[in-house]
């Protein structure tokens, strides 16, 4: 490899960081840049809920400090949005109006909050979060709020609710079991969840759905199908994640729900790879694409994408079915096909 190489990784999460590490270990000369929309250091996303509810300081979120990038001569471009890719000319167009040339590219942009189609008309009233910058303002609002409604459609919502309770908030929880992400909840699970939440003094609304949301002054009122009226200072919608690939659409990189890659994590362009939550990976055995979530998966894929980019040909193994305990419920998260 020559010093003229410029490897760019879009995304500063577990996939992106592991890719960068592997690239630097194997190539001391190439320019390596990480571009991320986030302005905050590489952090543990699953700790955000504790940060929002004010239980941990921002420092506790950090995985890797800025100085570590400098030491490894990796250029970290934070708070920078890639708006457009030109895979033919190998140019990235950034939102702040800069053109950047790359020789090889890894897309590791992760996911962004999903919003249910039925709730889109109330979008302005809903608060969602998936990134650190989303949470900074939210943390402040939650501090002031007394009553909070959580629209729960994913696994994070359970632990988030508990975090709020611990912060002495009055919490109501609406379960969206039909649209739950990324797994389908069995009725047995639902019962256990309800039991669990009630024991934490959470007002639960199961088998119900949102009919109307009204706002007067700074207070919201949710009217449900079952004619419940729930008052709230903030409505937080947690409906899981969708791959963050909007900026790729319209380039000629193949996408479906995520960026389509082969088992080597290669896209339809020779020098472009994708890894982590944003990738939709072809499984030759299943003869179909699959998406993985979870930190470990992303790390592994980041490494493999980097090795393949450097000339290796490592196949991503479909992970074995793994079952882990989640609030007393057994959940299978690492292997699924359905959104």
């Amino acid at each position: 490899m020559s010093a003229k190489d410029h490897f760019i990784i879009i995304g500063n999460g577990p996939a992106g960081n592991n890719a960068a590490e592997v690239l630097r270990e194997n190539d001391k000369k190439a320019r390596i840049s990480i571009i991320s929309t986030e302005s905050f250091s590489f952090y543990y996303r699953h700790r955000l809920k504790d940060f929002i509810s004010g239980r941990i300081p921002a420092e506790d979120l950090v995985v890797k400090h800025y100085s570590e990038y400098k030491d490894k001569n990796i250029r970290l471009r934070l708070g920078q949005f890639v708006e457009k890719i030109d895979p033919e000319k190998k140019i990235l167009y950034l939102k702040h109006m800069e053109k950047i040339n790359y020789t090889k590219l890894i897309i590791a942009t992760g996911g962004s909050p999903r919003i249910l189609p039925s709730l889109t008309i109330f979008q302005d009233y809903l608060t969602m979060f998936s990134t650190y910058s989303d949470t900074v303002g939210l943390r402040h609002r939650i501090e002031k709020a007394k009553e909070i409604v959580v629209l729960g459609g994913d696994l994070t919502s359970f632990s988030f609710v508990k975090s709020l309770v611990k912060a002495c908030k009055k919490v109501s929880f609406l379960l969206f079991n039909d649209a739950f992400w990324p797994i389908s909840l069995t009725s047995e699970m639902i019962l256990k969840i309800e039991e669990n939440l009630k024991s934490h003094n959470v007002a639960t609304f199961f088998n119900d759905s949102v009919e109307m949301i009204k706002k007067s002054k700074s207070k919201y009122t949710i009217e449900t199908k079952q004619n419940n009226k729930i008052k709230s200072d903030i409505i937080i919608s947690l409906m899981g994640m969708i791959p963050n690939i909007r900026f790729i659409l319209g380039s000629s990189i193949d996408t479906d729900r995520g960026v389509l890659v082969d088992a080597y994590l290669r896209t339809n362009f020779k020098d472009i790879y994708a890894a982590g939550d944003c990738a939709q990976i072809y499984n030759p055995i299943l003869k179909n694409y699959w998406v993985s979530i979870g930190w470990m998966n992303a790390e592994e894929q980041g490494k493999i994408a980097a090795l393949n980019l450097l000339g290796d040909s490592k196949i991503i193994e479909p992970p074995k079915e793994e079952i882990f305990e989640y609030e007393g419920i057994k959940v299978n998260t690492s292997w699924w096909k359905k959104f």
Partner: protein
Amino acid sequence: MSNTDIVLEICGSAGEGTISSGEIFNRYISSIDFEIMSFDTYPSEIRGFGKCVAHSRFSTQKIFTPGKYTDILIALNDAHSISQLGHLKDTGVVIYDSKPPKYHEEDKSIVGWMEPGMISYGIPFNDLAQKAAGNSRGRNMVALGAVCALFGVDHEEFKNTIIQRYAKKKQIVIDNNVNSFVEGYNWANDNLTKIDSISFKKGKNKNEKESIIINGNQAVAKAAIDSELHLYAGYPITPATKIMEILSHELPKKNGIMLQTEDEISAIGNVLGAGFAGKRSMTATSGPGFALMTEFMGLSVMAQIPAVIVNSQRGGPSTGLPTKTEQSDFNAAVNGGTGDLPRFVIAPASVEECYDGTTLAFYLAEKYQTLVVILLDFFLSNSIRNIDEPTPPTEKMLNSNIAPNEKELKDYVRFKETKTGVSPRSIPGTPNGMYTTTGLENNERGKPQYDGKLHTKMSDMRYRKLNSALNDVPKPKWTGPKKDIDVGILSWGSSAGAAYEAATIANKNGHRVAVLSSLVVFPVNEVDLTKFCNESKQILIPELNYSGQYANFIASYINRPVERLNMVSGLPMASEDVLSKIDEMIAS
């Protein structure tokens, strides 16, 4: 109320309204009672690039330095602003144009160079200005609007400041600027999520006195006018040129004259000519010009003719670093010239002192019939502050020439020996007061004469003037503890600001640090100096020159070792620099 202390920089290309937006910002910030210390860099001083920077520090506390690190950087021009990131704080904020007319090439965008942890807000300066006024001239105002939205500034009040600033312009100009500002304010309010924690709504408690916004050069010019300056003669040279430009506007209003001469020799020659004729006159220059004036400096002293020279120091020697600040002309100011050459040297430490030092200079020059050098520097010349309306010179200061009385005029002896060393001086037009003065050693009647006894007597008289003036000048300023001083800082000129700030912090940290600085650096007030040094365990002399010119000078008076802090980075001294030296000295 918690303290606010913020550094804001606006960086752009010439013609983008960088300096004027900085000026408006300063006016507003001053009107809400912040202390400000600001510093502009103009394109003429940065060859070939057209880069402008308006640097502004404002605080609820008394401040003495412009601040080393920036909190907020407004990038009107990306390419120019990139280098300003070097002193943006780790968590600093950048406000930039998110929709320039075309894409920046790789690494030509400010956002691309931001360090992790820094925060950026993109605002479509261009689009919004176009929308507001149909052209992009109001980009700077859009940026100011965004600043108001982001940092909680009262935008209605700010708007009034803009209107006042352009009050003399056509209505369309006012409208375009105001509309651009409002557009930026509204857009930022609607579209930006604040993620930094900076805000500045109100400064300290209201000051009773009227305050003015002024830089060192303007303060000198204002003081000169207030001191009834009649003739300014000068040759353009950075960083003193502005004094000449201001006076070229102001002097004609007072029937005075600004004379642009062919060189600095002619400038100081004209100054002496006017001084001889009984009018107040001055010149302002920098190192190279000051060097040319040396021969006339000797003449001023020998012929006993008042002369005021402002030397705004820049990096030296020779042509040196014309746009960088330095304090390396101390030797030249105090010792420059040949022979035994007593003169006054005034070194203002702040914009306020630029005014006071200048009025003092005219007073001393006229009263003591000799040379007064005012040492400014690039930084002080251009540093903008809001200061209380200065106190104009008194009648006594305005008419300080000691003229011969009628009895003396009966048989007028121009250089008659006196106790103070000052002989009454008649000015042209006075009947029977005729005399000839000369650069040759001369007797009491001005006749050239070379005998040793006379030379000894006349030399003594010339030096005696300085000693008798010591009671006529302000005493050195002693700040901080008066006894048991861990580190006593002997400071001079503009780096005294950094010394004050560093001492304040050190004293808060439980140390005992005091500062002695004097507006008049020559002649030396030995009484105060000795007292200060006797109370100080260690002595520190910070200054912006390589060889420690002041330290070397003062050593001969205090006869003990001194610690030195010498910097020639071209930047003003920062309190951080002095503080780390203090810590080092206390630790050892």
